[in-house]
């Protein structure tokens, strides 16, 4: 377990990948401890927006001490981030959360599933997983992002809501249309997608590791803001409410009530 820190990171570069979707590389010492499925807290400069924004790690470059985040502009904080250019100093908190258990995929046939802004953590997951990798990713329309990044590590299947690319529909439709199967699932995306994956995994009798999100304040497990219902007693409060920031954000689907 690495020590969490709040440090200054430096923007190396930033570009826009799709409408409202930004891609930023940060130089920071916390990259040394980062792994797939973890996240960082990024602080806006505007002091009226105080809380760190939890953003998933898209890619880790340990040699150069860099982290890549791909995020959607969702409010004033992320809007501010989207204007940052190379050299900008940014306070970050991290690395946070437990990440994906890549050892559970070793030697298996896996689905790596991402939906919308849940796609970014799938890139680092694809890099770290040592197995037969099928990335099944869903987007709203033909404004795809990170497709080429995923193709470097996995066979990629695309679903779009409007049918403009790949399967028309969602990631589950893409699995059906391509007659795919797997022994294990790793996923990040919107709640309806995660619910469908949980059901699919239960029907097939395979494990699914899903990454959850919730409104957060501290990001380190102290405030108890970002809990999710669990089927077993959580180890912190013993009330079936686990902390997404520290007990997760990745959970075995059968362990959470979503």
């Amino acid at each position: 377990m690495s020590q969490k820190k709040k440090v200054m990171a430096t923007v190396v570069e930033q570009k826009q990948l799709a409408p409202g979707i930004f891609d930023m590389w940060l130089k920071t010492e916390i990259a040394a401890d980062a792994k797939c499925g973890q996240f960082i807290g990024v602080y806006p400069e505007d002091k009226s927006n105080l809380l760190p924004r939890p953003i998933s790690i898209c890619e880790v470059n340990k040699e150069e001490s860099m982290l890549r985040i791909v995020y959607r502009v969702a409010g004033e904080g992320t809007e501010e981030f989207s204007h940052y250019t190379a050299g900008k100093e940014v306070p970050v908190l991290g690395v946070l959360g437990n990440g994906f258990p890549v050892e559970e995929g070793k030697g298996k046939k896996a689905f790596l599933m991402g939906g919308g802004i849940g796609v970014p953590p799938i890139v680092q997951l694809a890099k770290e997983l040592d197995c037969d990798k099928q990335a099944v990713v869903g987007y709203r329309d033909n404004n795809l992002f990170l497709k080429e990044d995923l193709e470097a590590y996995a066979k990629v299947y695309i679903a779009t809501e409007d049918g403009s690319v790949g399967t028309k529909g969602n990631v589950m439709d893409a699995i059906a249309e391509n007659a795919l199967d797997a022994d294990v699932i790793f996923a990040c995306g919107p709640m309806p997608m995660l619910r469908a994956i949980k059901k699919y995994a239960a029907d097939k009798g395979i494990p699914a590791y899903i990454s959850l999100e919730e409104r957060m304040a501290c990001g380190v497990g102290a405030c108890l803001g970002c809990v999710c219902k669990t089927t077993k007693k959580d180890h912190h409060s013993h009330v079936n409410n686990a902390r997404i920031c520290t007990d997760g954000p990745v959970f075995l689907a059968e362990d959470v009530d979503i």
Partner: protein
Amino acid sequence: MKNTKVTIAGVEFKNPVMTASGTFGSGMEYGEFVDLNKLGAVVTKGVASVPWPGNPTPRVTEVYGGMLNAIGLQNPGIDVFIERDLKFLQQFDTRVIVNVCGKTTEDYIDVVEKLGDTNVDMLEINVSCPNVKEGAIAFGQKADALYNITSEIKKHAKQPIIMKLSPNVTDITEMARAAESAGADALSLINTLTGMKIDIYKRNFALANKTGGMSGPAIKPVAVRMVYQVANAVKIPIIGMGGIAGAEDALEFMMAGATGVAVGAMNFINPYATVETVEGIEKFMEQQNINDINEIIGCVK
């Protein structure tokens, strides 16, 4: 050597800086960031007689210069707390103040009695959480109810008790006097201010609980004003809190009349805020040639 020690109800603290209940867990999480030995005290998250699940999510949301929370006092209950959290805290050279919550007078007494056999230094009685429907705030918004619960708890408590006051009242000095006359050893204020945020795109409340407690730098002037009012209304010592981000804020509270100060929501923004406040106070004393921190308590009349 400058003196940073303060004494509250006979308990000596190495410095006046504490953590505000609910923002620091039992110190485990922030122990990764700061040396807990440097703090005057760790004030724990509220603990009840049995585990409480808390409220549905979303439980937190950001507002201008602060945040709203409606955690609903999720906690593991007193037995797990004593076995695990207290054992953890006892490794450190800092005072331990346990925040006690309950739905009924009996709930509070149960927790207070179980803590009586431990070496906890003080008890902070939470009669001001705005986010639970029973107990808590119901005891903290009427002077006679506050008087009754304070005197009941005082009968059973082995440690000195601090009554934590709500700002969501017409006249906080009336509440402070009621607690003092019922035997409270100290007061802490302010708990959060009840607020609301509406998500205009979802046409819904930002918090599942509809309302939440506001904290953060935006509430500091209200808190300083209330500490000043209460300091002029009672003789028992005060622990001041509400938006403290660093030493300058903490010193404002002390000059307004607080003997102790607590860093709350700002821990979430700056996990080093507590220790930076301790160091900032020492630096201020050096610069201003203050030999004893007690000189500045209530110096603004």
